[in-house]
């Protein structure tokens, strides 16, 4: 045998294996690989291998007009695409000094939070499936689909909204849309007890998840972990609150914290964040009818638009953590440089390698899913 994912095993006398988790492996989130060396059931060495989803986004963005990249960026993180376009737009707005109308900001919040709910529902399902329980995945994906229906209705696309432009959003919400949002949100909230019964209060699951992939707060800070993973180690930090953007400073929500830093704590944090997101969406739904005005600040003809020379570092709290766009313009029609700082880049490589090492084979997938790693974000 030759070839990569089928390496000939030279079997040493010990019970050491080399296992390939991925790229084609059900225990891997997306198209990603983890080569692990196993002694018995215990992993002695792990090495992440990315690039399977590499498309050269940053290069592509340097080759396209400022506005064309709007349709490109959501692809960077498929499960949670909305923060990408919002963040990219925010970066351009900062460089060119565009003031986003208030209504657009509220709608962006709505979009971001719906996307977060969808992403979290998806993550629960994935996490449950790694422990052998598939029903939450079936439920979660089906319920997430209702949110995708909402996206379809107001942005025109189920997954990739491509709804933001620098300066605002592209379309007015359809008639009666906010009622539908409330309906779906209510439904999802009413489903949560059922999820709790099945999943979050499942003794077997808790037994599986507790103590797996423990990240201490110290370690997280050292490794640059952000988002729910950081909050699960007891640090109450949320960009929405601490580096506020859009209208988050006008919204009332809590930053959810857990102390333990293991897979179970991370999942719990997400579970509570889901509720917070629902709370935020409710506030947006209540506030939006009273916020009138423009949806979009005028921008020049996109074919000719030159963003003035400058740079900005825009940050958004995505469902995975701190998402940042470093955009540099040299005054040209295309970005000179766009650097995407995906949150997963931190926890899907170094952190994952560390957490997995010393753990058990059966916890690899769970660790990865509980970290909510998003490989396309790493590969870009």
């Amino acid at each position, binding site marked *: 045998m030759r070839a990569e994912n089928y390496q000939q095993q030279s079997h040493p006398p010990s019970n050491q294996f080399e296992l390939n988790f991925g790229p084609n492996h059900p225990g891997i989130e997306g198209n990603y690989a983890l080569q692990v060396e196993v002694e018995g059931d215990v992993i002695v060495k792990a090495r992440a291998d990315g690039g399977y989803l590499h498309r050269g986004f940053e290069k592509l963005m340097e080759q396209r007009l400022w506005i064309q990249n709007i349709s490109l960026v959501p692809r960077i993180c498929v499960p949670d695409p909305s923060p990408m376009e919002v963040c990219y737009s925010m970066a351009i707005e900062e460089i060119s000094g565009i003031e986003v109308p208030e209504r657009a900001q509220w709608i962006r919040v709505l979009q971001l939070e719906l996307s977060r709910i969808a992403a979290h529902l998806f993550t629960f399902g994935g996490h449950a499936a790694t422990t052998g329980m598939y029903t939450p995945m079936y439920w979660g994906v089906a319920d997430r689909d209702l949110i995708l229906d909402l996206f379809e209705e107001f942005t*025109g696309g189920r997954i*990739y909204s491509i709804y933001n432009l620098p300066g605002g959003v592209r379309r*007015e919400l359809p008639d009666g849309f906010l009622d539908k949002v409330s309906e779906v949100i209510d439904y999802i909230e009413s489903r949560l007890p059922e999820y709790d019964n*099945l999943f*979050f*209060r499942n*003794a077997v*699951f808790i037994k599986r998840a507790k103590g797996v992939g423990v990240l201490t707060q110290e370690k997280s800070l050292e490794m640059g972990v952000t988002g729910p993973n950081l909050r699960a180690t007891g640090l109450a930090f949320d960009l929405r609150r601490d580096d506020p953007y859009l209208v988050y400073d006008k919204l009332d929500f809590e930053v959810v914290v857990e102390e333990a830093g293991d897979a179970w704590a991370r999942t719990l944090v997400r579970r509570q964040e889901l509720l917070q997101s629902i709370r935020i969406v409710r506030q947006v739904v209540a506030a939006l009818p009273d916020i009138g005005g423009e949806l979009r600040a005028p*921008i020049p003809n996109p074919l000719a638009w030159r963003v003035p020379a400058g740079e900005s570092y825009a940050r958004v709290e995505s469902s995975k953590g701190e998402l940042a766009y470093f955009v540099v313009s040299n005054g040209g029609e295309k970005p000179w440089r766009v650097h995407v700082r995906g949150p997963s880049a931190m926890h899907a490589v170094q952190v994952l390698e560390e957490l997995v090492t010393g753990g058990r084979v059966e916890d690899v997938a769970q660790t990865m899913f509980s970290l909510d790693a998003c490989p396309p974000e790493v590969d870009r």
Partner: protein
Amino acid sequence: MKYSDDGSLLRPLRALSFLGRAAVTESLDPRPAADGYRGFHLNQHQECIGCSSCQKICDNAAISMVKVPSLPNDPEKGIRNLRPAIDYGRCCWCALCVDICPTSSLSLSKEYVHTCTQEDIDSYFMLPNEDSMHGGSEYGGGWEKSETSDLLNLDRQPMGELEPEYRQDNFKEIVNGFTPQQALDEASRCVQCGACHDACPTGMNAPEYIRSIYAGDLEQAVRWIYQSNPFSHVCGRVCTHRCEDACSIGVRGTPLAIRWLKRYAMDGVAPERIKELALEQAVVNLLEREFGECSAPVEIVSADIDDAIAVAKTGETIAIIGAGPAGLTAAWDLERLGYHTVVYESRPAAGGMTRYGIPSYRLPYEMLDRDVEIITSSGVEIRYGVEIGKDITLEQLRDQYSAVILAIGLHLGRSTRIPGAEHKSVRKAVELLRLYSENGELTVPRQVVVIGGGNVAMDIARTVARVQRQQYGAVDTTVTALESQQNFLADPEEIKESLEEGVVIKPARGPQECVIKDGELESLRSWGVDSIFDEDGRFAPHYNRSDEQHYPAQMIIEAIGQMSDNQLLSEDITEELEWERGRLKIDSNGRTALDWLWAAGDCVNGPDVVHAVADGHRVAASINDQLIKLRG
């Protein structure tokens, strides 16, 4: 829920209640998509103008422009028979093409299912039309352009003008021209479709110079401009801007002010520099013809260049009659082609109708002088005050020169021939305009009526109004036109400005008689007009006799059209030439029936400066071809 919670083994069993509950599964057939869904493309073929903006905004290079011969192709209206074909092997359904579409003809449907085998992969390449991808229309429209999503800026930058009180009694230029910011904003509206280029008789490189203006490189813009038009100062002000009629942005909004942008570019570069650039261009063109493509900008002063130029010159000389836009453009081109040109002009200054027909508040003479200066400095020789037929005959020219171009313009006004039109106080507009620009003054009575509704009528009316205001402090000028308000021939701005300056406009009036009492002109009698054309579209005005009006006037000015002064042609030549309705008949290259005589400009095309320039180009090219043929 707390971290310390150990969960329960029984709680999960509650999920078994779903055994008795309905499934949430959808049917196997595709659901109808939401109203704003971004599915496959739709394109209203009748509305699409083939501008290819969709192609430019497409970040995936998914759109090819396909020529559909069965569809109308009308460059003058900015309509091409190109339609976007979408490659669904590239498309990402972002709908940016829909949002940029200048006509709103593109939209996306709610249809989203398409599958095919490898053999049918061609079905991924689609020419969308009004029907959905797989025919039929049951899917309905999805994403359409909304006001918010529209990516185009449809409103023109306002052009600053002198307020009426500052302009109504003098001949200062009215239009201020763009400020740099305005020019930048206006240039940025362009979608670079090139419809203007197609519509322009001279094939102006408008998209390119707009791009250069936007890039802040005015010199480059001037270079682009000089590639097709040596009368750029003039055209930047008084061009009839066919380009703007064709502009795709104009389909839903106001077209780009292409003329003003040209003016901005020309005004933004110092005249000496323009001259340098233009002459550089001329030399480059000359040398390119002789030595093939030159890539680097040429330094004119270099001695080698002079030698090269000498080699490139053919040594032949061409005579041109009339130093108007057509004649001088031809001269400019011929110089660039290596000929020497001699222009005969009967008047003391060059410019032809642009000098003697356009009031200086629209075109300051200084601008015209700049253009003429550049042309003459390229080597063109103008002999002023020489009248053909009197000082020198055409036959002499024929014998002395390799070819002769007739570009005599339209300097005679047409008459209405209504009763009383022969009276000395019934004048022709062109005549008065010429008088004014030659002498800088004009005597007008207190009450003047102008017959005609075109731009010339407006020019004379506004000139008269100014003079009246200067002389009497009050304006009493009335313009009567056959056309109704909506179909007025003159540009809307002209009408607006005329009204601001105190000119009274009476639309839909048919002149019947210049009423003369005691040998003095008293008034114009006119009837109301019901219709101008008959059912077949022929000119046959139908009057409403009961609606009779008298407009008192001590002077009536006819501004209903011009004709050329063919007196200069000798009888022999007149007979040898072919005529059509009083105009010289020429072929598509501007050649007359005589193999040494070409005709160009207003005298063959009717009044239009940009057409005259185009004619000049055409004739020059034709002469060059002919002479090369003769040389063997």
